[in-house]
């Protein structure tokens, strides 16, 4: 069964329809990218999928469970990396993982056995007992990713995982995510970095104003929308597709 099926999702705030009837499904073991400018409705879509806000219409099935009805049960098998870091500033790196694992009902023994591997994955083995206030932005991001893996989830949901990181830190995150895909994890990713989408995603959907306006593999989207590169100096890329479809005006 598909790890996530979204069917005809609608969500409005007041008069504004933030999500205007979108449908998509994830393929197990693949990375699905939800692209779109700021305010396109990506984060609201994720919040609905996780059962953190109730949709006005539409069906969501997350790891086989109906959402929001059984969102709590579904989230037991999901790992989430939120857009903004919300690590616990009162704890060390290892304590952050321990406390978060307890929220999944895992015993301390099980979590403690997983912590060394998670810290190694995050490249933070030497920082186990360091208070997270002293970690760099990239380290915090990697720890947040490791935290999302504490329950060994089937599906990872990443909301703009590399926003605000320098290129080195971003490449390290990409490498880790590729490793997780190679292990067979499924990923749902929102981003507005086209390079990120091209590198990681097998399937893409471009969202604007609450609707999916294009979908396909990165190469399909480029071939379909930009048959001729706008510059003779380079081949057409996803950024060209994105700007063609969503326009050049600022969205903030």
């Amino acid at each position, binding site marked *: 069964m598909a790890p996530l099926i979204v069917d005809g999702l609608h969500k409005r705030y007041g008069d504004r329809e933030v999500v205007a009837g979108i449908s998509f499904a994830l393929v197990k073991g693949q990375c699905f990218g939800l692209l779109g400018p700021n305010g396109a409705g990506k984060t609201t879509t994720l919040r609905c999928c996780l059962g*953190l*806000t109730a949709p006005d219409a539409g069906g969501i099935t997350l790891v086989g469970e109906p959402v929001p009805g059984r969102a*709590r049960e579904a*989230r037991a098998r999901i790992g*989430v990396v939120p857009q903004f870091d919300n690590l616990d500033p009162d*704890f060390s790196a290892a304590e952050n993982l321990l*406390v978060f694992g307890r*929220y999944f*009902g895992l015993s301390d023994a099980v979590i403690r056995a997983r912590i060394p591997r998670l810290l190694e994955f995050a490249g933070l083995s030497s920082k186990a007992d360091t208070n997270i206030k002293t970690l760099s932005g990239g380290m915090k991001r990697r720890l947040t990713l490791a935290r*999302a893996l504490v329950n060994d989830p089937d599906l990872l949901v990443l909301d703009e995982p590399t926003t605000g990181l320098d290129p080195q830190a971003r490449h390290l995150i990409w490498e880790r995510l590729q490793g997780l895909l190679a292990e067979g994890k499924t990923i749902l990713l929102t981003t507005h970095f086209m390079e990120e989408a091209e590198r990681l995603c097998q399937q893409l959907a471009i969202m604007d104003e609450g609707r999916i306006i294009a979908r396909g593999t990165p190469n399909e989207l480029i071939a379909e929308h930009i048959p001729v590169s706008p510059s003779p100096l380079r081949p057409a890329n996803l950024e060209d597709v994105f700007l063609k479809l969503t326009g050049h005006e600022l969205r903030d």
Partner: protein
Amino acid sequence: MNHFSPPQLSWRAISVWRRNFMVWKKLAIPSVLGNLADPMIYMFGLGYGLGSLLPAALPQFGGGSYIAFLAAGTVCASTMNAASFEALYSAFSRMHVQKSWEAIMNAPVALDDVVLAELLWAAAKATLSGVAILVVVAALGLTSSPLALWAIPVIFLTGLAFAAPGLIITAVAPSYDFFMYYFTLFITPMTLLSGVFFPLEQLPAGFQAAAQVLPLTHAVALIRPLLFGQVPAMAWLHVLVLATITVVAFWIALGLTRRRLLS
């Protein structure tokens, strides 16, 4: 979605309570001493300073010294303050500033569990505050009855009855500054109107009636007799009032928090 539908609580709340306890443990001793200092200053200052001006063994003070009368009030007021601070400033910090609640809700923990955990944690911390004063009061010989041990569950219930309304304010607070209104308009007047510093009977009749709706009045009505070694009159009624305030205020706080975070 109806934000005021019945709470759906689960045992996962314990994991959130443990998170707060784990943070507190790191600073436990300064925290307990800090919570003890302020009420002790009031109790000794007013108890001995003001008390020495008063004739000994006034019937209004239960026939004992003024400081023994004030001690019971101090236990209640300190419990109230500790529960309120935790449910306001600390919970707001976790909800709004650190976004800890959002992180927790990405795990299989519902907001209902998080708010329940905050309620139980604030009451637990208030219990530590109240019991710390009770220990000092007993060490000074201001109470000697074994009935005083019954004050401990009452202190916890008092903590709940103040944590729950505090969480309502937290649910609607735009910033820390907002809490000033709650303290100056609600907590401080209540401290003066609930029989902490002087018997309720000294107030005009209208104020006495109004005091009956204040949770602190009921906490004092239970704890003072217990510290004097007496069984409180109409104890069930005072317990019922405090329990009702807890349940109703928790429900409202949860509804408002759901509206704030789950829209």
